[in-house]
């Protein structure tokens, strides 16, 4: 079924995992450098000019490219398979894929030539080669076209099924893409109005504070763009894999709508210590970020309850006995469940980051990479790995290569991440060591950091090995000679309660999109108006290539 959509999904996933391979390669080297093992002189042999060029590749390829390609592919697949209706127009998705790949290639050239060593945040007035900005913009535009293809499909399904409510997985996948499209307007405006004219020399100066504001307009919701596909799997698919049911399906719908509403107007919590944003706006965004904690808590409850239904259905007894009864022999299930456990700590840390002045204790310290490796590096990435353990066999028609290795991959990622993340959290909190810094050769290096940085480096090395196991399994599956005995279907969890009636307000895009727009206008409108209306005096920063 849906052969062409499967093929498209395969392409998105292929580019995603190729990017992650290159980006992930640098991870262990960074951590080893912090622990005093500097291998960057050796890396020059393969054309890596500096720690910071490697770190830019790590951030851009992992956080921007891998995630976006995987998500557009997975969400396209999940929408089609949930609606049981093929894409309305395959050409739109093909255009999306081509635009994204062309953008990636255009952006990759300057990064590889060390002409865009500006990190994945590309804060001006660091000035990268102009094609870096053009390429990344095309990747975003391509992802929008991928979203469009999904909307056309949902609209066509609506027409064919009047009076029916959209199935949960399709709805959640579509909300994820809508959220991303609204959220990425920030970075689109940054690119098109500030950075690209400036990089091409049309504008002589830029406004760094405005650029940061527009970046984080996108930069926080992008975290939810990474997480929501995991949630789609945790809510909609994993309960089925565990033999359970989705505990409260309509509440799950509400949670996704709340993420659409609340993910975006919270970006100033990344700018708590920015000098150009008044404290009042920081307070408002802090409160809104706290409200975002509520759908996350509902997720924790519903997902765990759904898995408990599975554990009990599989014969688990007692208060905690159902946990043992879960399908821990399944690599797909295990990877995702371990991702959830890591995310629990990521969520606690995230709440710390969002807590207004508590942020002073950890802002831009090693705590931050410690934190987001639990979110994007675990809740997202390890879940995507888990999904791939059924999706890649489904797409390739081959059995999963070495399932035991895949299981080992999940556990080594878990163990490595605990060491890595704990080391970075603690060294950041206790000693304030800065993030994205070549710590091992810094003149202010503090010997008290060493044990923690060594712990992190051991963790990063285990993560590197775990990554290699993942690639062995995936490449082995794609080229396996062992065909599947029976075709794999996307796991779709049934609702536990009878929730065949979906209230109209949970099945309607318009009111939620309007409410989202209004909230964004309230939370961002006045500051953006202030910045733009003072452009004449504010756009004064020339660019610098200082790497």
């Amino acid at each position: 079924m849906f052969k062409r959509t499967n093929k498209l999904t395969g392409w998105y996933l292929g580019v995603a995992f190729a990017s992650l391979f290159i980006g992930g390669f640098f991870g262990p080297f960074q951590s080893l450098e912090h622990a005093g093992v500097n291998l960057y002189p050796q890396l020059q042999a393969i054309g890596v000019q500096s720690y910071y060029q490697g770190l830019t590749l790590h951030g851009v390829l992992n956080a921007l490219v891998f995630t976006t390609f995987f998500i557009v592919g997975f969400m396209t697949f999940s929408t089609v398979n949930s609606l049981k209706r093929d894409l309305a127009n395959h050409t739109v998705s093909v255009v999306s894929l081509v635009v994204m790949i062309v953008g990636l290639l255009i952006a990759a050239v300057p990064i590889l030539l060390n002409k865009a060593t500006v990190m994945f945040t590309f804060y001006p007035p660091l000035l990268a080669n102009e094609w870096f900005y053009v390429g990344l913009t095309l990747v975003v535009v391509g992802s929008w076209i991928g979203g469009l293809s999904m909307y056309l499909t949902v609209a066509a399904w609506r027409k064919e099924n009047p009076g029916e409510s959209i199935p949960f997985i399709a709805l959640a996948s579509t909300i994820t893409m809508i959220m991303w499209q609204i959220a990425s307007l920030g970075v689109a405006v940054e690119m098109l109005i500030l950075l690209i004219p400036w990089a091409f020399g049309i504008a002589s100066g830029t406004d760094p504070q405005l650029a940061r504001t527009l970046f984080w307009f996108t930069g926080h919701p992008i975290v939810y763009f990474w997480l929501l596909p995991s949630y789609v799997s945790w809510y909609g698919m994993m309960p089925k894999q565990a033999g359970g049911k989705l505990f409260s399906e309509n509440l799950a719908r509400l949670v996704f709508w709340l993420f659409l509403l609340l993910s975006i107007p919270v970006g100033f919590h990344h700018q708590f210590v920015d000098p150009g944003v008044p404290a009042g706006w920081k307070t408002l965004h802090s409160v809104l970020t706290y409200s975002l904690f509520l759908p996350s808590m509902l997720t924790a409850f519903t997902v765990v309850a759904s898995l408990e239904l599975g554990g009990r259905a599989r014969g688990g007894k007692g208060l905690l006995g159902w946990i043992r009864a879960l399908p821990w022999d399944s690599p797909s299930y295990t990877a995702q469940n371990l991702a959830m456990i890591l995310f629990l700590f990521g969520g606690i840390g995230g709440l710390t980051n969002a807590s207004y002045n508590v942020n002073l204790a950890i802002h831009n310290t090693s705590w931050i990479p410690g934190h987001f490796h639990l979110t994007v590096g675990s809740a997202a990435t390890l879940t995507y790995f888990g999904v791939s353990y059924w999706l890649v066999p489904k797409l390739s028609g081959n059995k999963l290569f070495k399932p035991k290795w895949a299981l080992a991959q999940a556990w080594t990622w878990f163990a490595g991440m605990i060491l890595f993340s704990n080391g970075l959290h603690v060294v950041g909190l206790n000693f304030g060591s800065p993030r994205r810094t070549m710590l091992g050769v810094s003149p202010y290096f503090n010997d008290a950091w060493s044990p923690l940085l060594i712990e992190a480096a051991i963790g990063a090395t285990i993560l590197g090995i775990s990554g290699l196991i993942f690639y062995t399994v995936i490449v082995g599956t794609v080229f396996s000679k062992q065909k599947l005995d029976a075709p794999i279907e996307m796991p779709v969890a049934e609702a536990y309660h009878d929730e065949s009636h979906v209230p109209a307000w949970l099945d309607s895009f318009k009111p939620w999109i309007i409410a989202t727009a209004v909230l964004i206008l309230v939370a961002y409108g006045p500051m953006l108006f202030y910045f733009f209306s003072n452009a004449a005096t504010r756009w004064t920063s020339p660019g610098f290539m200082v790497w």
Partner: protein
Amino acid sequence: MHIDRTEKTFFMFSVALIIVFAIAVGISGMVYGIALPTPPEGFDVNPQTVATPGVSPWGEQPPDARLHELAPGEYEVYILAQTWLYLPNRITIPAGSKITFYVTSKDVIHGFRLDDTNINMMVIPGEVSKLTATFDEPGTYNFVCHEYCGVGHHTMYGQLIVE
């Protein structure tokens, strides 16, 4: 819409938790005065002219003159961040002093985090980062750039010496 009783309880617990956190943050801000940087009044900084002597307090020469004693035990210092140093980068004050930092950048974005204090700020061209701290314990406190600012980023730091 059906909502399970246990889930409702859990939700109320979550709301209560958030309210407790918000109150704790409010107390830390209002009672203990742990503040975030906010745009100070009276500055109009252009990164292209901010280092010019006579035009701005960040242009004073030598850089050590950018430390001003306002009253006994009360100081302010205008630190200019640039790739890859702070000027001034060695500041000496007596123990028990209160010092206000005004930091800006003449080139790219930098950071400014001072050990063992609540001073942690982004330093952005065109903006002024201002925070205050009091130092009772003698010692040497590093201030470190915590935002990537180019290939020499990891060498960018300065020291506050409390005597």
